[in-house]
């Protein structure tokens, strides 16, 4: 490896934007819709006024036009439902659900239609719909704009759920979601959005396989399992643990449904200890799902009970000092890991 090989660093936002653009180039059936994803309605002088509330769709309308990049009114049931219908009839729509809490006004379309049509119609109808949505606390946005909620979608058969953790897999998972023939929800953590990472993000198009986790570091003493933003937290905690002389394995889950059970189990069978770090509410969650999996399938390998680091059973507070107590931190993960290790 020479110095000349430079690493292409782009932000999480740019990565998603790139995936959208490349998939739209690749396949004319891909369309994107959502509130203000271009902005300006259809007025000539205000093309690409906003490029999306999180800038994820910046520039797309200029490249692909208003037919394929569609501003929608604020009616999630209407346009997510339209996404379902468009997907079932030959398009590959990407629908932007700005914040995951807004699932509440369109849940019927996601869980009763997108998730069930394939099954109810005996496998004869496909719904290649992608929904992208913003998740996560830490931005001073209070209880209705800070939820994570991927657990409730993972609950439903018929949906696939992925949670990227850096620009590389954000790009690859988005491309994979769009090409996938099932409905896929991509959960993007808003604290990651603006960040650049060290990872190299190739310019050319690629996919990251849905259903596969990534081993970030290999270790012997303990497994830290992260999801999206909490993978970062796990990496930071791993550094602190390594300072203390522990050998840590960090697993980045990436997909919740399907879930890479094999990778989780083999890591735990090796390290015999696990801390699951998740930002979703603690009850009936992906963290309990993994904890149960590990307990049931790797019982005889465990040196200590599985441990979860999650927020408490509370809504997301607005006040910053309280909000800082809500989100899992490296200190909490460290403390939990030490408890398990000692």
């Amino acid at each position, binding site marked *: 490896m020479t110095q000349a090989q430079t690493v292409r660093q782009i932000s999480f936002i740019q990565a998603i934007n790139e995936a959208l653009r490349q998939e739209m180039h690749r396949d004319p059936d891909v369309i994107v819709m959502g509130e203000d994803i271009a902005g300006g309605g259809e007025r000539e002088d205000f093309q690409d006024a906003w490029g999306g509330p999180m800038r994820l769709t910046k520039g797309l309308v200029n490249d692909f036009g208003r*037919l394929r990049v569609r501003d929608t009114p604020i009616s999630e049931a*209407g346009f*997510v439902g*339209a996404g*379902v219908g*468009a997907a079932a009839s*030959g398009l590959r729509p990407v629908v932007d659900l700005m914040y995951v809490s807004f699932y509440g006004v369109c849940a019927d379309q996601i869980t009763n239609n997108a998730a069930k049509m394939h099954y109810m*119609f005996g496998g004869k109808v496909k719904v290649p719909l992608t929904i992208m949505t913003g998740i996560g606390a830490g931005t001073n946005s209070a209880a209705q704009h800070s939820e994570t909620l991927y657990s409730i979608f993972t609950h439903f058969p018929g949906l696939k759920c992925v949670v990227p953790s850096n620009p590389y897999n954000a790009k690859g998972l988005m491309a994979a979601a769009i090409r996938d023939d099932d409905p896929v929800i991509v959960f993007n953590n808003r604290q990651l959005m603006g960040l650049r990472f060290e990872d190299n993000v190739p310019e050319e198009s690629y996919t990251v396989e849905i259903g596969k986790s990534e081993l970030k570091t290999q270790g012997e003493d303990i497994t830290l399992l992260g999801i999206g933003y909490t993978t970062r937290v796990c990496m930071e905690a791993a550094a602190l643990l390594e300072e203390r002389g522990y050998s840590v394995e960090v697993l980045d889950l990436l997909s919740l449904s399907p879930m890479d059970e094999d990778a989780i189990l083999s890591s735990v069978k090796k390290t015999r200890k696990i801390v699951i770090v998740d930002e979703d509410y603690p009850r009936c969650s992906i963290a309990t799902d993994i904890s149960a999996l590990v307990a049931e399938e790797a019982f005889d390998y465990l040196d200590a009970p599985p441990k979860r680091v999650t927020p408490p059973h509370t809504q997301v507070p607005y006040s910053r000092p309280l909000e800082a107590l809500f989100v899992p931190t490296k200190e909490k993960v460290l403390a939990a890991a030490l408890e398990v290790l000692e």
Partner: protein
Amino acid sequence: MSITFGRFSNQPAEFGKFGFQKLNWHAVIIAPNLKSISAIVPALRRGVEMPYEELNKESLLWMYETMVTIRRFEEQSRREADAGKLRGMHSSIGQEAVPTGICAHLNEKDYVLGTHRSHHHCIAKGLDINEMMAELLGKSTGTGKGKGGTMHIADINKGMLGANGVVGSNIPVATGVALTAKVKGTDQVSVVFFGDGASSQGVLHESMNLAGIWKLPVIFVCENNRYAEATPFEYSVAGGSVANRADGYGIPGVTIDGQSALDVFEVSKEAVSRARMGEGPTLIEAQTYRYQGHFGADDPLGYRSKEEQEYYMSRDCILMLQKHILDGAYANETQLAAIDMKCIEAVNTATEFANNSPFPDPKELITDVYVTY
């Protein structure tokens, strides 16, 4: 302001008696914002290819056969339900004219989406009644391999994108289907049926708005059969008219006599043609009546009078069409009887097919959950 249409409707003077607004005969009030609804002007084809265009012998007999097939199918499905082979079957008897008059203008590339009460939509859209009956009985030969059942019949090859058990839920889906036609630049049309009860769901409003601003080729068809379960529409629909609501979205709304297959045929010809030509959505409110209880086993006399029932049944859509055919000498009684017989036989065949078909293999429980997983 929506328009009210009833060229062929032979409503008696007391039509308004049970609550429906009186229809105007042989006249269309063109609302100011309806530039192109003019169903009584026959010169309106504008080069669009539709399976049936004129109310001629061919189209009338197709409608007759379709409606009789629905009636016989529903009578049989009720028998199967009464025999305990399925539960909660929502019968469409009495409402045959609505999907039939509309589907007369649709081809296999056009889409129809339905509700919990959708057997008539499916048959009008040309689905195989063998597969439909098998689906009702939960058999592997059914449209959905028995996994969907009576409330979820679909056949994408015939353009039936599914009945749906959640009231109102298919309205935005149909809007999305119309979006596909628009993005792909085809002349396909998407038709969604829903009930008077469903008109209270927010997605209707959201979808009319979306279809309105995007000028999508979707037709919203409200089958107003006067009841949502046991709740009369006069109670649940503020303002008393579903069609009127179209006006708030700048799209045409029409109220028609849903018992007159001819009126349905004429108005929907116009709506389908508008959609094909890229002129946007239409809302049609078809006034009709369900003869049986909501899900079959229930007795409707708990919430509606015998007198009312008899009145509506006296305007039976099949009898009315039959009369028109005979009066116009499009066919004679023997010929109609032959059609009746053909329909009965087809339903008998379907019943036999369904009953003789196997149940799904146990492993089917977990297939078709995903395309890949």
